[in-house]
């Protein structure tokens, strides 16, 4: 039994020794040369990567075929851009010193990508030197053999080394990183993390929008008790030092942490940038505020606020993370949206109980060295009432007046901007027609009347603004056919609208049935309205209008006008009723008067006179002739008399006694002659 155990032990020792021997053989014979690398990083993160290749004479003799001078001559042309090389020989040992010098980590990365012939490599160099973190952190995703692959190819392709020995040309020796006075050893792929840091729980970045271009900023840094215990005095000194001029720094105690708050009440975008640079202790912080009003509704003024905040003062490469929350407090009538481009509207935040009045937009852990916040801020003049008046002219054209009454009165500049924006939309003033536009803008207060965009469909559009009873209102007047109004509204509101009217066509009908329908949408004009907002709609109807049918529940006819209200920010109404047609009345009046006149005429012409009546003049003529037989009248005279007899009676109308010429009364009965 004992010999068996001893044999087993001996057997195992033999296996281990054999394995060690094999490893020794493999390492000793696997490569012809050794690369020793030193990455030197300076305080400004510039530096050099030195790769020293050492080839012993025996190895050279065994594996190298040809002349070293010939090879060096080829090296000049083959060495990639960004790398330099030097050859030396001492005591039979040949040495190539390869070097990549860089001015910054970015420069280093570019050069390595060029040498490797790849689009991107992972390369991080960070050397934080703050109270939160100090030391060096280097991460690379490549090694020396990859960086010298071009040299290996040069040796093999030109026959200096057999292709069967290609894999054994280089072997990685020592790799170290030098930063300051410290040297850190690492593997073939450099990975050094020598960062000493104290953690920060969270940073809360609070933005108060006072008005467009004016912000309040508060940054609250939550420092855990453990960090304060470790470097409390250093942290306090540091935080006090980052408070910018004009801002306020305050220490307070929170739940298991210490809070430091830096705040400033009123900052422009430039001042906000300076604030961030100071608080985050980095020049790599930027703030931009761009006017985006041209993309917004006429009653809205937009600003795109973007913040780029460098967190490297609190982070060390990939070795720590920090929770950063971003919140916004808006003044009344202001709105804020996350936005990637300053046009689209994203998340609108949700109330954050921790900070009264603030809405939380973002709350995440950040591992990157920076954080970006992009916010679309809108200052909106809410519409409190919209009055729509639609009239139809006798010629069949339409006149529509839209009056938007705003909750607050904009300043003069904003009023002009609103009018101009609407004029641009309507095609009255074009963005490219600057000279004409400026004239239009100048006349905006009083209103400018020109044609709309489409040359073949032109509605007259007039835009004006006025303040009445402390309420500012913008009025748009559209005149034209239904199609012209439709096109005009499409340009103004970017929405489909329609208006159509029809009535009985029988011209003789005094009471006609009429119908009209109108659909109006206002696009983003009514994006912001007050509570209780409604559209007051009025349409002029025909004479003595009587409503029979209407799709709007609130519709009523008063004073010859249809009134209705809509609370859903759009108008959609179909009306049917009756009216009295003036033209039909005129027709009947003309006809009636004509017929009556005709009858009168016929009566006067004696068409309806009785046959007996003409007898009196005839008789009178006979009697007259008998009463004056002596008179030798000519035919002409008789005719004249006969004519006179038609107008003056020669007999008493009561008793029939002949009437002497010139007599005023009847000689028999005494009756007075009328004529």
């Amino acid at each position: 039994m004992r010999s068996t155990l001893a044999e087993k032990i001996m057997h195992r020792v033999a296996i281990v020794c054999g394995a060690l021997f094999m490893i020794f053989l493999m390492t000793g014979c696997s490569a012809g040369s050794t690369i020793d690398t030193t990455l030197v990083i300076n305080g400004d993160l510039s530096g050099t990567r030195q790769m020293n290749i050492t080839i012993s004479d025996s190895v050279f003799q065994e594996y190298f075929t040809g002349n070293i001078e010939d090879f060096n001559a080829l090296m000049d042309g083959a060495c990639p851009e960004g790398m330099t090389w030097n050859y030396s020989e001492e005591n039979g040992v040949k040495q190539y010193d390869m070097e990549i010098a860089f001015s910054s980590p970015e420069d280093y990365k570019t050069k390595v990508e060029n040498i490797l012939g790849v689009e991107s490599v992972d390369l991080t160099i960070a050397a934080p030197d703050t109270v939160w973190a100090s030391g060096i952190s280097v991460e690379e995703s490549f090694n020396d053999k990859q960086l010298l692959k071009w040299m290996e190819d040069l040796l093999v392709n030109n026959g200096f080394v057999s292709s069967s020995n290609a894999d054994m040309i280089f072997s990685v020796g020592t790799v170290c990183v030098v930063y300051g006075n410290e040297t850190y050893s690492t593997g073939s792929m450099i990975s050094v993390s020598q960062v000493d840091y104290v953690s920060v729980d969270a940073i809360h970045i609070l933005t108060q929008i006072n008005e467009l271009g004016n912000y309040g900023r508060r940054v609250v840094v939550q420092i855990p008790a453990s960090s304060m215990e470790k470097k409390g005095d250093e942290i306090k000194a540091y935080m006090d030092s980052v408070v910018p001029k004009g801002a306020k720094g305050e220490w307070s105690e929170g739940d298991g942490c210490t809070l430091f708050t830096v705040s400033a009440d009123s900052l422009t975008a430039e001042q906000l940038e300076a604030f961030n640079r100071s608080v985050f202790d980095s020049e790599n912080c930027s703030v931009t505020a761009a006017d985006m009003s041209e993309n917004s509704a006429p009653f809205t003024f937009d600003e795109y606020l973007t913040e780029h905040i460098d967190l490297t003062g609190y982070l060390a490469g990939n070795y720590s993370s920090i929770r950063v929350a971003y919140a916004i407090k808006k003044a009344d009538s202001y709105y804020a949206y996350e936005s990637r481009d300053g046009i689209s509207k994203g998340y609108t935040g949700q109330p954050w109980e921790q900070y009264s009045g603030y809405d939380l937009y973002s709350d995440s852990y950040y591992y990157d060295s920076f954080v970006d916040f992009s916010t679309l801020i809108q200052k909106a003049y809410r519409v409190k009432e919209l009055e729509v008046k639609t009239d139809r002219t006798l010629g069949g054209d339409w006149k529509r007046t839209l009056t938007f009454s705003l909750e607050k009165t904009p300043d003069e500049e904003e009023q002009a901007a609103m009018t101009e924006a609407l004029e641009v939309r309507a095609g009255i003033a074009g963005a490219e027609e600057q000279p004409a536009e400026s004239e239009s803008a100048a006349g905006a207060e009083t209103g400018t009347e020109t044609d709309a965009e489409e040359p073949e469909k032109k509605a007259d559009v007039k835009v004006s603004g006025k303040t009445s009873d402390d309420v500012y209102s913008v009025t748009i007047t559209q005149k034209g056919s239904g199609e012209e109004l439709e096109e005009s509204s499409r340009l103004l509101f970017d929405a489909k609208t329609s208006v159509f009217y029809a009535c009985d066509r029988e011209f003789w009908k005094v009471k006609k049935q009429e119908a009209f329908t109108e659909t109006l949408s206002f696009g983003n004009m009514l994006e912001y309205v007050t509570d209780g907002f409604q559209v007051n709609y009025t349409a002029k109807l025909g004479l003595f209008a009587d409503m029979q049918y209407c799709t709007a529940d609130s519709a009523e006819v008063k004073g010859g006008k249809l009134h209705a209200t809509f609370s859903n920010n759009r108008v959609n109404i179909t009306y049917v009723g009756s009216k009295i047609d003036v033209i039909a009345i005129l027709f009947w009046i003309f006809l009636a008067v004509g017929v009556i006149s005709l009858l009168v005429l016929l009566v006067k012409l004696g068409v309806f006179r009785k046959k007996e009546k003409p007898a009196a003049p005839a008789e009178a003529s006979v009697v007259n002739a008998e009463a004056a037989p002596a008179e030798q009248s000519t035919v002409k005279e008789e005719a004249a008399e006969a004519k006179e007899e038609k107008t003056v009676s020669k007999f008493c109308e009561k008793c029939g006694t002949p009437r002497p010429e010139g007599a005023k009364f009847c000689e028999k009965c005494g009756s007075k002659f009328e004529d």
Partner: protein
Amino acid sequence: MKRVLKQPAFWVTFFCLVLAVCTAVGSSLMNPGIAVLDKFEKGMNKGKTATVVSCFTPDVQAEMKALGELGDSLFDITDAGKLNILYGDVIKDEEGVSGVQAFLIYNQDGQCTEADYEEIDLEEVGGKVYLSAY
């Protein structure tokens, strides 16, 4: 004749009747009717299937005839009242008459009970305008 022309009543009659005629003609010209719609309206109100069918294009008429009798259900909407079609001017495109915007109004006892606004498709075949869709 001279006696007639001297009468003021003659001139009143003349001008009034001329104005009445002008009013009638002008009104008619301003609101020209579309015969096929008037015919359709009459056909519907009188319940005459043949009249209604004749308003459609020959193709549609053939389809209707192939389907057989249209039945009384066609006139359900005009059983209780009257259909009144109020329409605007015809819409024309490159191919000629294409439609008309119209209100289809259902009246009962002279009062509208329902109204639909729609564009009625029209088609011109051999110079005659027909309803192109049933």
